[in-house]
């Protein structure tokens, strides 16, 4: 099987392959961001109550993916058999713990 040379024109499109893939990736990212903004729910820190991120849960093949969670650094735990909790990892980001020394 022949490999496409990086930067070579794609079949018929007349647009270099990496650029075309970049546009597709960019469109997917925009779609994803739009879905999170419209359908996502605010996820708050269980300690200070501040919003950690706006997330959209997706369950797939034994995994729970939280779209949007990559926007912040968070710790996750279970506090009931069917409930997860989220909190800040870093003390200086958490209003309730920042000055608690």
């Amino acid at each position: 099987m022949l490999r496409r040379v990086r930067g070579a024109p794609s079949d018929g499109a007349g647009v270099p392959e990496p650029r075309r893939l970049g546009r597709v990736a960019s469109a997917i990212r925009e779609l994803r961001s739009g879905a999170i903004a419209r359908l996502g729910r605010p996820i708050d820190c269980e300690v200070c109550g501040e919003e950690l991120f706006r997330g959209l849960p997706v369950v797939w093949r034994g995994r729970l993916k939280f779209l949007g969670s990559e926007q912040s650094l968070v710790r996750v735990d279970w506090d009931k058999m069917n409930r997860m909790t989220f909190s800040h990892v870093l003390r200086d980001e958490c209003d309730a713990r920042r000055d608690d020394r």
Partner: protein
Amino acid sequence: MSTLNAVVTHLRPAAVKEDLELLRAVTPGARFVVCHGGSREDFEGVETDDKVFMDDPSLRGPARHLQSWTQAFEAIWHRYFESDDSLDSLYLFEFDHLILDRDYEQRLRDLAEATGAGLMGKNCVPREGTNWEHYVRWRRDERLLAHLRSISVREQPTKLYGCLGDGMWLSRNALRSYVAVGEHPPCYNETYVPTLLHHLGFRVVDVDSHSDLYSHVRFAPVFCFDEVMSLAKRGGTAFVHPVKDRAANAALLRSAAS
């Protein structure tokens, strides 16, 4: 007892000279060693005998990937600590970590004594159950986990810690133990240093949990000139990181000299 201060830099000799002048002006009496991770030519041009060249390829790879402090720790231990029992601690920081308080060594030592720390750092906390990018990268790295299992004195030998790579304070015993391990697997220093020292039996301490020393130390965003000068004028601030505006260094040097 005294602290050896290791300044990690890759800057040109003239900039390193300015940085050392500022450090010496703000903290007369403190002892500094330059850990240079730039070109050999720039290293040779740095005007001090207290310097070590770091040619570790990990320091020249992609940012925040595999950077290791091991070479710096080994060089510093063998060259300075082995022959000088008066050195009780190492303070390693990056060139963009400014020191504003001349008493910082004593403040760090006091905090270490109060907490029993072997390592102190910014955001030095366990990272399990978090989405920290360097935790999710390393949590199933079999080479790292096997290494930790082989040396750990803890009940949970695969527990991973994290901290900022800048502003690490190590006790003499912690540095000796780190170097004595000998072989180290590839791992990013922000994960590896606190994790290894925890598993070697040392207490790793989050500075923010006990003190305001690191109130103005962070990963991002960069402190601008006005912020730095405001903190310096106000007083009470020990450290500021990251500061990339060289004008701030120059202004602080003028202020310290006058």
